[in-house]
């Protein structure tokens, strides 16, 4: 068990100082560290790794002390036996895949070294890439190599900072499976940082939710993130639409309740929850979970179909953010291709289509 009880303050001129304050016991197996960018997730990993020195507190792995401010013990990163995959992966660009993976295998006998290399290259399916340099690898291949490099040294803790960002679901799942089977017999603590809700669900293990350097929730993903107790956490969980409303009625047999939004005359059907009739709540909907139609859709299972007009369209890379006024204002994400084929312009009349289960209840702060 990895025990982390630390505080670290970052003072910068001009902006308010940032404080990281953590007290957690991290068990063997996956722990997902979830939160928005700037929550201090990577900094926490750097502290565990020994790359950043906390101001006070202690970090222990079982009985072994990595850091103790009072006893003035600071074990340097290279002596901690921790594997760390950075967000940038940090593969050595001048070394081949084989040299990258073997980099940490120092002081081992030749057969031991060869055996470990063979096992890890096999486990992460990168045997065929050995002779290439990182510049010649695809994104997914680089991520596999970085993972293999960090586990081949048999670390006692594994820190993963968004190691699978940018991969499609299938590939991500495949790599996660490789990692899971690698850890099945070892049972070391793996701390997995992400700000992507889909990755949390894909891993499906314990989650620690961080906002502003502090832990705001812990438990299984459904407990922590489907019912984010704090609005800040809902924002962190990627809900662009946070709409104030009031519960109108419960339809227990349909498994839903109706909510009137505070703005306009919109009503939404959302999953049945604990909120009482008349109680003020906030509904969180991800912009990517809303469909846009230019004609009223028929024969569709989605229960919420709201007419509205397009107010503005803003392209951010591969995502087009469409602001729609349907009484209340909604953010909707579509692809540039969808925007073109629907011929969306400000003033276009559209229908918003929202599945019941895309609506999540957040208690106002």
């Amino acid at each position, binding site marked *: 068990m990895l025990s982390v009880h630390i505080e670290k303050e970052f003072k910068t001129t001009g902006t308010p100082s940032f404080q990281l304050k953590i007290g957690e016991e991290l068990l063997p197996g996956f722990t997902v560290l979830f939160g928005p960018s700037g929550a201090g997730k990577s900094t926490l990993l750097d502290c565990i*790794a020994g*790359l950043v020195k906390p101001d006070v507190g202690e970090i222990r792995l079982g009985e072994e002390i990595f850091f103790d401010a009072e006893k003035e013990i600071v074990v*340097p*990163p*290279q*002596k901690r*036996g*921790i*594997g*760390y995959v*950075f967000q*940038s992966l*940090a*593969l*050595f*660009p*001048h070394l081949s895949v084989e040299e990258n993976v073997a*980099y*940490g295998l*120092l002081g081992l006998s030749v057969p031991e070294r060869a055996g470990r290399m063979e096992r890890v290259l096999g486990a992460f399916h990168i045997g065929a890439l050995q002779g290439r*340099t*990182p*510049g*010649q690898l695809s994104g997914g291949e680089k991520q596999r190599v970085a993972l293999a*490099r*960090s586990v081949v*040294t048999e670390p006692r803790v594994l820190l993963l900072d968004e190691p699978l960002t940018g991969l499609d679901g299938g590939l991500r799942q495949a790599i996660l499976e490789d990692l899971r089977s690698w850890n099945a017999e070892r049972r070391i603590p793996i701390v997995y940082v992400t700000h992507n809700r889909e990755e949390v669900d894909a891993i499906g293990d314990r989650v620690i939710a961080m906002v502003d350097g502090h832990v705001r929730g812990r438990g299984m993903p459904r407990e922590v993130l489907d019912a984010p107790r704090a609005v800040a956490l809902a924002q962190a969980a990627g809900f662009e639409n946070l709409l104030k409303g009031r519960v109108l009625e419960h339809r227990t047999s349909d498994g839903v309740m109706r909510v009137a939004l505070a703005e306009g005359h919109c009503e939404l059907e959302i999953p049945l929850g604990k909120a009482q009739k008349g109680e003020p709540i906030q509904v969180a909907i991800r912009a990517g979970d809303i469909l846009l139609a230019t004609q009223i859709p028929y024969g569709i299972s989605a229960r919420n179909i709201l007419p509205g007009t397009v107010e503005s369209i803003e392209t951010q890379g591969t995502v087009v953010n469409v602001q729609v006024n349907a009484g209340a204002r909604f953010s909707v994400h579509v692809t540039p291709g969808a925007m073109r084929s629907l011929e969306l312009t400000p003033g276009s009349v559209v229908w918003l289509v929202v599945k019941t289960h895309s609506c999540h209840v957040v208690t106002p702060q």
Partner: protein
Amino acid sequence: MSGEALLLSLRLACTVAVLLLIIALPLAYWLAFTAWRGKFLLESLVALPLVLPPTVLGFYALIALGPRGAVGRLWQTMFGHALAFTFTGLVLASMLYSLPFAVQPLVASFESLDRRLLDASAMLGAGRVRSFFRIILPLAWPGVVTAVVLSFAHTLGEFGVVLMVGGNLAGITRTVSIDIYDRVQALDYAGAHQTALFLLLISFVVLSVVYGMNRRVWAPWGHR
């Protein structure tokens, strides 16, 4: 054309370039990675030869290396002869003079390295020495080449410091640039021209080789 002067200049430039690299590597490493707030003092000190007239530098070098200077006296007790007006004295003064040309390209290339690569190296169990030779040095290679070439070329062309510290002793301290100066003073324009042209060509060829090579150093891993 004076072959003797040319050979002496080449010998001086090579010696200085090699010795300077050995000194500049740890110095540049420290300057690039220390968190010490007062490091700007050392940076200024290293950059000083860039702005000082060579005669000022040469003057102080002469005093330091002379029989009554600290370095000169120490040398005298250790080796039994003086430093000023010798080849060794010339090497020492030239190293001082070319120091920024060796240190600054190294610092720049060390600082431009992705720090996460060094973090990754540490997480894989590597200490500072291993990280330096396996990661920093190979990736900063263009900076190393630049440092060596600049200190070589700068030493090859120096005049003021040599004249102050070395004087004008044929075969010992009379370098190419002083030889050219001598010839111009003696109105031997043809001789001066021959040597000057030769120096120009050598400099151009050396720089071309290095810049051409430098481009290929990047190629294997496709960055930049």
